[in-house]
């Protein structure tokens, strides 16, 4: 029982990341009709926004300490962060400690700009091209983006810890009256799940309760009619691309403390997120979120030692296996809309 509960919890945070990436992918596909293989790179850039802000906040001036030696035997260069000099050691170190949550604000304008540049600078030229061309160009773009990140940040993972206050774990077992120390779940993963739920809720609310969102939904349903009504739907779709980039970026920012960011992390999530979109149903936002969580939890279960012992290798193919089964039984995916990619 406790093992099952733990794997469900495990699946939730991974599912959260899948859901956020898949949500952005679906937004782009549903509005612009573009299959964006660079979406994982946006997730990765988001994580590196957290790394960048952490480094910016840690920018230091150097003083020479004659009493200590460096590895070459020269007087030690002691680095003191500017924020600690400006705001005092306590406040300064607290600001550095909170770099990841602060990066949420830092990353929003950056990701929106990256999204706008990506759409206006490259992707708009491929709207009328076949999906294969779109996949090729966006996949190429993803490789370029990850190589740029590698050039500036190196190939090794960069530790980007959560604030100290979230560094421990919650004894979930003790909380629900089970044995203590058996179901332990890190605080930051709980924060990640709640954050993802809030973002998903905000995107849905934006689309449902604002005029802008209503126009976008109308455009997703019937682009031509909305255009005939004199509404510049293209401009709104460009904004939706930027919004999708922000969602992916925020997912990356908050994921940085879970796994140290590296230049390849976007690719690791991208393929699985596409499967999530297909399973959820192309163009269906609730489907993407639902499939994200379902597949995240299934993947966790398939990684259990008992399951792997019974079916070796199942942990590596479970998502694809489920995708095949769902597509055979429900060709439009869990919540797919009629007519999407069926013309």
């Amino acid at each position, binding site marked *: 029982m406790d093992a099952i509960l733990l794997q469900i919890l*495990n699946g939730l945070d991974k599912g959260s990341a899948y859901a956020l990436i898949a949500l952005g992918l679906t937004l782009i596909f549903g509005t612009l009709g573009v299959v964006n293989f660079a979406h994982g790179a946006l997730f990765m850039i988001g994580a590196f926004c957290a790394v960048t802000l952490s480094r910016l906040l840690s920018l230091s001036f150097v003083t020479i300490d004659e009493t200590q030696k460096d590895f*070459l035997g020269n007087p*030690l260069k002691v680095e003191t962060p500017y924020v600690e000099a400006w705001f005092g050691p306590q406040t300064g170190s607290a600001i550095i400690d909170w770099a990841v949550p602060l990066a949420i604000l830092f990353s929003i304008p950056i990701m929106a700009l990256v999204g706008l540049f990506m759409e206006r600078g490259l992707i708009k030229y491929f709207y009328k091209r076949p999906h294969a061309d779109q996949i090729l160009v966006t996949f190429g773009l993803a490789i370029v983006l990850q190589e740029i990140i590698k050039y500036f940040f190196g*190939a090794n993972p960069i530790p980007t810890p959560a604030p100290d206050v979230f560094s421990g774990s919650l004894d979930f077992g003790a909380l629900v009256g089970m044995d203590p120390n*058996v179901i332990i779940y890190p605080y930051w*993963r709980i924060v990640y799940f709640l954050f993802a739920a809030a973002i998903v809720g905000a995107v849905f609310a934006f689309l449902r309760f604002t005029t802008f969102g209503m126009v976008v939904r109308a455009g997703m349903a019937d682009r031509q009619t909305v255009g005939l009504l004199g509404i510049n739907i293209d401009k709104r779709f460009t904004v939706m691309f930027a919004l999708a980039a922000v969602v992916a970026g925020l997912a990356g920012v908050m994921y940085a403390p879970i*796994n*140290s960011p590296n230049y390849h992390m976007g690719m690791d999530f991208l393929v699985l997120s596409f499967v999530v979109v297909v399973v959820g149903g192309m163009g269906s936002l609730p489907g993407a979120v639902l499939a994200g969580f379902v597949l995240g939890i299934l993947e966790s279960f398939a990684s*259990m*030692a008992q399951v792997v012992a019974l079916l070796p290798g199942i942990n590596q193919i479970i998502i694809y296996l489920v995708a095949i089964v769902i597509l055979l039984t429900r060709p439009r995916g869990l919540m797919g809309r009629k007519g999407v990619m069926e013309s």
Partner: protein
Amino acid sequence: MSLIRKPLNRRSILRAGALGGTALAMPTIFTSRAWSAGYLNEPTGSTVTLGFNVPQTGPYADEGADELRAYQLAVEHLNGEGDGGMLNTFSSKALKGNGILGKKVEFVTGDTQTKSDAARASAKSMIEKDGAIMITGGSSSGVAVAVQALCQEAGVIFMAGLTHSNDTTGKDKKANGFRHFFNSYMSGAALAPVLKNAYGDDRKAYHLTADYNWGYTTEQAVRESTEALGWETVETVKTPLAATDFSAYITPVLQSDADVLVLNHYGGNMVNSLTNAVQFGLRDKQVNGKNFEIIVPLYSRLMAKGAGENVKGIFGSTNWHWSLQDEGSKAFVQSFGQKYGFPPSQAAHTTYVQALLYADACERAGTFNPCGVVEALEGFEFDGLGNGKTLYRAEDHQCFKDVLVVKGKENPSSAFDLLEIVEVTPAAQVTYPPDHPQFAGGALGTCNPGA
């Protein structure tokens, strides 16, 4: 009186001819000049080209970059530039700082991408197009085994870089290949006594193992060493190499009876699995009345940096560390630090040493002929290169030297000061017979000069 005391006949002429021939051949048979017979990529001009095959892209690109820095430094020192580094402390004095055998050392580089196919292709290109006489480098056992086999077929020497799997000098050993880096068996043998002292002999270990060759040999080595202490292995679980989130593998550990987690992971796998294990509170856990402990059999400073604070207090082993205080290590750290501004990694150290050892072997053999180099390296004992007295064993082309047991430092004084040396395990303690079961299978074969 006749000047010819005995009449000439066919037999005496043949005898004289054979004796004369033997006499003429004598200097070349009993000196290494015999190896000056034709061989692949024999340098004819005033330069000799070495091929540095390192990961310049892919997940180990940072280690590859450090290897390349070390090679460039080695080339400078071999050509008589810079401060000479470990040439000044090396016990062999065959190298004079005038290149190798009087030829200026030049180099070409290849990108292994940490993929066996790409590594073989780049090595092949350097041998065939650039005329590289020796290939060296790499940061993966899969790549090392693949490139070693290629060099054996082609007929050039392969001086392995960072490769820790037993198989490189075990079942996949080749006559043309040499490894200075230590291996999984040595890690297990060095770690076991330290673990016994630190954690006792009544422990239950849970292994998470990267699902490829290196993971298997490391798991086997650590398992056998710790079981010999009296530890029990509760579970061994293979994790996909492509895994990034290990939470699904970590949480079953919480429910097992284990009180030690052994992470047979390297690179990004190690960074992520260790981070996840710490996040899930394993280090704060008490099981069987004991503190839960984590062990990382193969440490690297570059990887420790990626795991950040999570490495604190965690035991592992390493081939070399910049804080060693022997003359060789100090000379290398000084030389490397002056040039690049930070201390070298163990990958940089092993590749620098391999370049020097190859050059020295050529000098002592008096030739670049791979078979001469093999003969010069086999059974070669040396000192002054940072690991104490070292033997290149003839039977398997593995170096036997001291192994470092290290621990993540609790209070690092700088960004480089992440690991502290807990024990320098003597070479004798990590030495094993060539026919040890963990190295069973395969044969060294004979050297191939390629022509």
